[in-house]
């Protein structure tokens, strides 16, 4: 954020368009570079959520999977809010009924779990 951005905010003026251009470009390039459609991304989000939901209770509506790009490296970032029990512990699901999880290719996938306190 630059000094101009702050002044624009204080005066409630439209921000200068360069920052809008930068943000829009970063978003569109992340998709261009990955060749993933929003449908596939959505499908992937569901499947990732299902896998994680076998182990901990997560908020199925809140989870977000997005592509982020920096320095020509694109990362898949999954943000999965974990539900907590009343005493603040993470809700674990009994592991004995789990089928073997197939260890698929995990290159470039950063997983970033966020904890939410919505007990």
């Amino acid at each position, binding site marked *: 954020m630059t000094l101009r951005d702050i002044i624009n905010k204080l005066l409630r003026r439209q921000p200068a368009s360069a920052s809008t251009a930068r943000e829009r*470009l970063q978003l569109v390039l992340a998709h261009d570079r990955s060749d993933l459609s929003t449908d596939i991304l959505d499908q992937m989000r569901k499947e990732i959520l299902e896998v994680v939901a076998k182990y901990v209770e997560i908020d199925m509506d809140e989870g977000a999977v997005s592509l982020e790009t920096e320095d020509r490296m694109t990362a898949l970032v999954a943000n999965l809010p974990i539900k907590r029990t009343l005493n603040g512990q993470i809700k674990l699901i009994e592991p004995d009924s789990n089928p073997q999880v197939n260890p698929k290719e995990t290159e470039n996938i950063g997983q970033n779990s966020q904890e939410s306190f919505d007990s």
Partner: protein
Amino acid sequence: MGTDTRVILICSGKGGVGKTTLTANLGISLARQGLTTAVLDADFGLRNLDLLLGLENRIVYTAQEVLEEECRLDQALVKHKQESNLSLLPAGNPRMLDWLKPDDMKSIVNMLKEQFKYVLIDCPAGVEDGFKNAMAASQEAIVVTNPEVSAVRDADRVIGLLNTNSIKPVQLVLNRVRPKMMASQEMLSIDDVTDILALPLLGLVLEDEQVIVSTNKGEPLTLNSINSPAAKCYLNIAKRLQGEDIPLIDPIEESSGFGAKFRRLMQTKIF
């Protein structure tokens, strides 16, 4: 010559960002430094390099006749009137696109390598066959872009293709930079573009009305108007290509006085 010839693809993805103007001016600038340079118009569909160099009336044969062995290479090469170190190999008929293959481009470039220190290939816009043929014959590349979203996006596509085809180094030229708009943050900054595309910056070219005047006359700026802002930029790019350490100009520095100082202050990053 032969092995130490540098074959440089000048490409952009998007049309109209200044590939041909850069090719013409780099050709003149390198020739001025005493380096034998060939500029090859690989835009067979919409050729224009001849026009920008003012050589359109002197074309007898083209790359097409060379490939069909109807003439020798030196019969097709058009030597520049003022800069004898510079020669143009004109693009052939647009119908060439029907049969031209990457190997044809390679054989043209191999012939040029025998005689020249630099071969600059003016690439067509797009990422289709015309681009792929030109890329097949190249060793390194200069990607030209403007500080605009569409040009940067298309440049990114091209950079991806260059990387997968092991073209290196790939360097960036940021064209049509408007210092005032950059200062008021209404135009993507130099850092924005180099960060997004993750390429080393070979140079930037300031927006300059004289470019249009020079194309009207068919005399590249670097030929007769070397004091115009864009011409200085082109000359610097040619020197950097040769390995000279020429510092980049700061476009905001270019607009001097109190206004510029104020604009710089406004650009200060707070967090």
